[in-house]
């Protein structure tokens, strides 16, 4: 299988005010994260707010410059490259369909902007045809091209966001919480559309969300992040049914399952306390302050992210 994207030791630090003059502090939003995505695959990324999943997605697209590490797309190192040619091949769908569409542009122009930038259409007529075809593909129609974003419902706006990403015929799409702002009955429509488009257009997704049920449904493999670190990465079913990292275990057990009989018998691991601040993360393993298995070594040494089973990576001292 061909690797479309590879991320090596990716780091993204943000400077923050420390409160003292001349003292610099950083938030380690993404700290030494490595993974790859095969062509045609969907990799899910889950974790709680502030764990760095969105920053990972944005840094891969160089919407934010990485502090350290390498991003390799289709065999080319793009960490320092001019992104214009790659922007056509790598796209993003944002979380909030209300904030991510320019209210002063018509939907046709929003979708067409990418075509103009990459000079993909020879003339206006062709541009119009491509836009209409794209809108129809995501379940809208040609009439919608002349309307403005405020005339659409949340689900329709997210379709516009998807059309905008797809119109330049990308190979890779970062989906950053694309359904969390939508109503339950609309979520399934959009999830199904992502799946259908992937089949039709041979797309590769990095699917970022906090809702593990959705991520599990759409992904081939899932990565779990905690405080800027990737703590576990495995096949979707393997991760759901045999999680190895204590954090993944509690995360999965904390998700309310829509099945009353199952939820009565299910064992729940309720974590104590809150996520520590990413400015001063705990030493060694970052999860150790909330982990019930933590021992001395967890405070002293950072666990290595290693393959413990076939294609099952985990960073934990206890897992052998």
């Amino acid at each position, binding site marked *: 299988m061909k690797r479309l994207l590879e991320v090596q030791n990716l780091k993204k630090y943000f400077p923050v005010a420390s409160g003292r003059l001349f003292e610099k502090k950083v938030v380690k939003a993404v700290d030494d994260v490595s993974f790859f995505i095969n062509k045609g695959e969907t990799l899910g990324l889950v974790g*709680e*707010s502030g764990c760095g999943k969105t920053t990972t997605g944005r840094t891969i697209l160089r919407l934010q410059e990485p502090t350290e590490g390498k991003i390799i797309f289709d065999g080319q190192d793009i960490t320092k490259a001019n992104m214009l040619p790659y922007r056509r091949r790598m796209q993003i769908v944002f979380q909030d369909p209300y904030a991510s569409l320019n209210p002063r542009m018509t939907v046709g122009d929003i979708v067409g902007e990418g075509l103009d930038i990459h000079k993909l259409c020879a003339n206006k007529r062709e541009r119009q045809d491509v836009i209409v075809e794209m809108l129809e593909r995501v379940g809208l129609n040609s009439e919608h091209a002349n309307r403005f974003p405020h005339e659409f*419902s949340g*689900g*329709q706006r997210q379709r516009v966001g998807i059309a905008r990403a797809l119109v330049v015929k990308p190979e890779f799409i970062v989906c950053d919480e694309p359904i969390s702002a939508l*109503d*339950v*009955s*609309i*979520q*399934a*429509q959009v*999830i*199904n559309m992502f*799946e259908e488009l992937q089949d039709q257009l041979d797309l590769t997704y990095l699917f970022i969300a*906090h809702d*593990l*049920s*959705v991520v*599990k*449904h759409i992904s081939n493999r899932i990565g779990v992040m905690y405080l800027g670190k990737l703590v576990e990465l495995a096949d979707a*079913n393997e991760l*759901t*049914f045999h999680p190895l990292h204590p954090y993944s275990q*509690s*995360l*999965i*057990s*904390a*998700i*309310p*399952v*829509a*099945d*009353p*009989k*199952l*939820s009565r018998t299910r064992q*729940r691991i*309720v*974590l104590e306390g*809150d*996520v520590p601040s990413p400015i001063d993360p705990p030493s060694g393993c970052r999860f150790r302050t909330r982990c019930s298995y933590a021992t001395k070594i967890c405070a002293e040494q950072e666990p290595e992210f290693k393959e413990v089973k076939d294609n099952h990576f985990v960073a934990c001292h206890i897992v052998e």
Partner: protein
Amino acid sequence: MSDQENYMLKINNLRTSFFTPVGEVKALNNVTFAMKEGDVLGIVGESGSGKSVTSYSLLGLLAYPGKIVGGTIRFNGHEIEKKTEAEMRKIRGDEVSIIFQDPMTSLNPVYTVGNQIVEVIRLHTDKDAAAAQARAKELLELVGINEAEKRLKQYPHELSGGMRQRVMIAIALACEPKLLIADEPTTALDVTIQAQILELMIELKNKLGMSIIMITHDLGIVSNMCEKIAVMYAGKILEYGTVDEIFYTPRHEYTKGLLRSIPNLMDREHKKLVPIEGTPVDMLKPPKGCPFAPRCESCMRICLEHMPEVVHFSDTHYSACWLNQKDEWTKESVEA
């Protein structure tokens, strides 16, 4: 349905409307349900289905241009719809309390946590300042906040989201209400924190013996927490039943659709989701018949014209759908 006196809360044909410049929005349309002491009721529905308006009507919190236009609310011996604002203020916070969705905005940022808890206690009881302070500390401990003494002096911005929601719960429980309404209490929180808060609510319910109305759009949460579920759509309760009845023998097409459209974490096979097509109802122009009819796969002619009557399947389970009244509609369609 026999002993009427057993019910702590009985809402009958409640109708609430918002009189907006563009027309009357009938947010609640003949909502009827009842709760016994100690019940945990889940109200599920999408945005705009009227689940929050139901609780605001019950609390007398409807803001202009909202108004109760019909029906009755019997709560703990009170005729809520006839109460004045001053009378409601006595009931609210004392006999019934609410926790809002967003703990960031529902606490006052310029008062300490202690101040805000003490305020409720002193308003509703005759405790003096010292006794109220002691009670506040006790409450913080009850909701699982360590170093309660120190926390009382802190401001909301010094606490994390989960912590703030615990403070909200402490405020809501200050007078040991008979009924606690939780309006999407965990939507703004992370999964592991959500689990903590839900656990805490159940624990407190068992300890204090109150009833809970849990308003949410998350079917997972109701299946974990609730005994009974009301499924709302466009200001109507389309189906009502115990958790098992709703999840395993749903009788309304909307409920069935909802259950088919959510992915289940515990499915080993990849099942394709079956979405509910179309978009939610425009409440300014609601359909004439069943509000779900335009999106319903089994929609019949009668559904578009007339709202179906409620049909009971058991003491606890009822729903309003023409498919459950085969005799009625076959007769009518023959006539038509």
